[in-house]
């Protein structure tokens, strides 16, 4: 979803605008005259892709919503090898997918600036892990910048392009959820772009080939490059030193900086603060200078003790008696994201100060007040075809012992209360590989579930493997036409791509058959009885076989309906006909359906109902029907 800030992204500066950090990153890249944009959606970076896509008609950059992050990075690599500026963005685990290209690209280097925005997700708000992506930088010898807010992110994107071009190396712009999803008032600059022009390929043969002898030579050049980068970062204004003369210091970066500054104000203390913007290579000389004369240094960073270990190592020579407060000292945890109160408590404890608020007491009181308040986990939207598909699958598997390997997408939520369905979930595309292993190991039917976008992203090799080996499992591809979870972006099955430009839609059944699958069924999850019986038949046969459950994402199709000026209809429950079998509640759990406190009959919310009509088809008494004028 593109917020109001998108219009500010195209606005001529200088001007003041309220922008999401992800929008500020786009604005920075546009001001830096980026020419090629390529990305796969992933929270918390998705709004970068969405914003680039929304404003694409206003600019001449070429853009692809890629099949996956690896292809996205390789697309940028090709463009930047030729000499154009390019940018990609991805979530933490996206860089795992792209890492094969990433490590080699650091060897070959680039000519045109290449910026990789990678966003970690402490707290795993919308990710399968809390992976700390900072370690990619030192292991690949790729420079890394970390902003704390939208203004800084915009500035750092521009700096990153500059560094990338001067040193011939891709640059990581590393963020975290609370940086990406922070909005603030930003002063945007002027937009001065050169017209798009193709370039000659004027590199000598083998310039971007890395293998054996070439790789060994690149390695030495890469080490030298890292040395030069560190030298440059020692004097870089991306690192900010605030010296108060105190014998206590804080070393921090990114989101941690915001909490640290507020915490010190809350506690009424004024330590010196070293805010690191260049977190690889670290300016070790600057850190050493900072540590001299300090009695205590507090390191405020989320996830792993990345800065802390370096600070500790640097202190060994610079100031061996300094006390380092961080994760290794037990003041902070490596788990979960920080918050203002976590940082206040940790610093207060280290400094022997009593915090102004007893947070534990406030939390205890809040817990007491919330007794009986029902959890509201994310769940399938009203009208979601996944709800219908999972319901049909349950019906089809009644009495059949089974195990379900699921995948990354909206359907991942099926494991949450109250649906509680699904046995394994690892990463994009893993349902197929895991199912292959399960069919060797378990005494029951093996089912794999994957969405269309995830299938195109990382499911194809898994299906090739299953067909080739004759692996015995049934694959359900939930085809809802879009990459739904991140906001209904187009995918390779769509007739459009970035900026709503026309694209060739791949035909999923042709792809599946083309990979050698002979047993293929297509069902409509809204066709409740038909879908369950088709599934039952397919599940009774030996795999590998595939069932495509095809129905557009409800949010996506509602948006298209509204665009066409069509009304979204709704259903209602007939009080006379309802005999309370709760077929529309059990294993269905639609947010539009609740139970009347008094007569215990079900009620459908007119505001929420999407009229998929699946509950009406489930009802044995036919008590659910279209609301007149609804």
């Amino acid at each position, binding site marked *: 979803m593109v*917020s*109001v*800030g998108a219009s500010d992204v195209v606005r001529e500066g200088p001007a*003041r605008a309220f922008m*999401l950090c992800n929008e500020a990153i786009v604005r920075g890249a546009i001001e830096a005259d980026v020419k090629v944009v390529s990305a796969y959606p992933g*929270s*918390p970076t*998705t709004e970068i892709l969405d914003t680039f896509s929304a404003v694409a008609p206003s600019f001449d950059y070429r853009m692809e919503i890629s099949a996956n992050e690896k292809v996205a990075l390789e697309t940028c690599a090709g463009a930047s090898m030729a000499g154009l500026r390019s940018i990609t963005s991805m979530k933490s685990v996206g860089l795992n997918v792209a890492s094969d290209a990433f490590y080699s690209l650091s060897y070959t280097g680039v000519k045109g600036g290449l910026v990789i925005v990678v966003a970690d997700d402490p707290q795993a*708000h*919308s990710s399968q892990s809390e992976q700390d992506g900072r370690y990619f930088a030192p292991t690949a010898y790729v420079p890394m910048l970390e902003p*704390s*807010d939208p203004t800084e992110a915009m500035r750092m994107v521009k700096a990153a392009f500059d560094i990338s071009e001067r040193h011939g190396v891709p640059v990581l712009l590393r963020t975290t959820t*609370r940086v990406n*999803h*922070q*909005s*603030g*008032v930003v002063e945007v600059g002027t937009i001065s772009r050169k017209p798009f022009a193709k370039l000659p390929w004027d590199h000598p043969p083998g310039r971007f080939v890395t293998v054996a002898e070439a790789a060994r030579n690149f390695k030495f050049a890469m080490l030298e490059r890292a040395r030069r980068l560190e030298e440059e970062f020692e004097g870089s204004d991306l690192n900010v030193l605030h010296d108060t003369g105190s014998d206590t210091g804080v070393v921090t970066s990114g989101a941690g*900086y*915001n*909490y640290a500054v*507020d915490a010190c104000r809350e506690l009424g203390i004024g330590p010196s603060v070293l805010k690191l913007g260049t977190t690889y290579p670290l300016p070790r000389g600057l850190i050493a200078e900072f540590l001299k004369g300090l009695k205590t240094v507090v390191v405020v960073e989320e996830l792993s003790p990345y800065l802390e270990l370096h600070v500790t190592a640097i202190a060994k020579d610079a100031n061996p008696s300094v006390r380092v407060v961080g994760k290794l000292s037990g003041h902070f945890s490596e788990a979960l994201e920080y*918050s*203002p*109160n976590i940082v*206040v408590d940790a610093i207060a404890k280290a400094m022997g100060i009593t915090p102004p*608020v007893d*947070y534990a007491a*406030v*939390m205890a*009181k*809040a817990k007491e*007040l*919330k007794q*009986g*308040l*029902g*959890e*509201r*986990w*994310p*769940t*399938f*939207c009203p009208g979601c075809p996944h709800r219908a598909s999972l319901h049909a699958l349950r019906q089809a598997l009644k009495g059949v012992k089974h195990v379900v390997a699921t995948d990354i997408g*909206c359907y991942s*939520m099926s494991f949450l*209360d*109250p649906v509680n369905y699904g046995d394994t979930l690892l990463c994009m595309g893993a349902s197929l590989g895991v199912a292959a292993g399960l069919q060797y190991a378990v005494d029951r039917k093996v089912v794999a579930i994957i969405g269309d976008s995830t299938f195109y992203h990382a499911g194809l090799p898994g299906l090739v493997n299953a067909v080739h080996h004759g692996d015995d499992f049934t694959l359900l591809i939930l085809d809802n036409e879009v990459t*739904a*979870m*991140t906001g209904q972006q187009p995918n390779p099955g769509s007739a459009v791509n970035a900026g709503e430009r026309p694209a060739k839609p791949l035909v999923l059944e042709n792809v599946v058959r083309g990979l050698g699958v002979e047993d293929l069924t297509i069902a409509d999850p809204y066709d409740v009885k038909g879908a369950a019986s088709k599934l039952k038949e397919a599940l009774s046969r030996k795999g590998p076989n595939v069932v495509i459950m095809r129905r557009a994402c409800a*949010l996506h199709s509602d948006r298209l309906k509204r665009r066409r000026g069509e009304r979204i209809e709704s259903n209602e429950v007939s009080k006379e006909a309802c005999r309370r079998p709760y077929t529309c*509640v059990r294993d269905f759990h639609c*947010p539009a359906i*609740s*139970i009347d*406190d008094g007569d*215990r009959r079900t009620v459908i*919310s007119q505001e*929420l109902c999407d009229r998929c009509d699946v509950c009406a088809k489930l009802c044995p008494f036919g008590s659910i029907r279209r609301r007149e004028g609804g």
Partner: protein
Amino acid sequence: MAGREFSVYMSGVGGQGLVLLSNIIGAACARAGVRAITGEQHGLSQRSGSINVHMRIGERVRSPLIPIGGADAILALEALEALRYVEYLRPGGIVLMNSRVQHPVSETAGHMKDKQAKYFSAEDVRSRLLQVTDKVSVLDALGLAREAGSPMAENIVMLGALSTVEAFPVPGDVLRASVAENVPKKAVEVNLKAFDLGKGKAREHLCTLVKCRE
């Protein structure tokens, strides 16, 4: 304006337009020359999950997250979500909540099994909140939004009510102008009416609890 700080913890249910609401306030801040930052929740595009936005106004605030006990107000687009984040409210802070309840599916699943079960109600929420503050104002935002012309304008009804609060450091007329600028063109009239209805309704109750602008 400088020096005045105000933090609003905004909560609701996915699909109620909470992010648009925070953008409207943020854009108004940019226009009024007031510094504002937010910590938002994006990522799961699903409807019906609990969502929140931390909105912080002030020259010196850096953290996009409000500290526990640090919110001057909770603005809840759905009743249960007013209680869900109560730990953020400072003692005696303002709670401005919609009376509309969207029953979580987990609660409905419980109802199916227990015939005596009663849903958590807006009144339950209000009485619990009164244990930590005396400034709880409940608004029928859905009813007022319908009166304005669209049930989708609940968020703007709530904003209209908030705009009356004197301590909220963004002028009401700038907020109203920001609504007009940032909602879809064809919905401007409905939303401005929703804003005015919310503002009018606040005078009846909210303004008896907190100091309001003239």
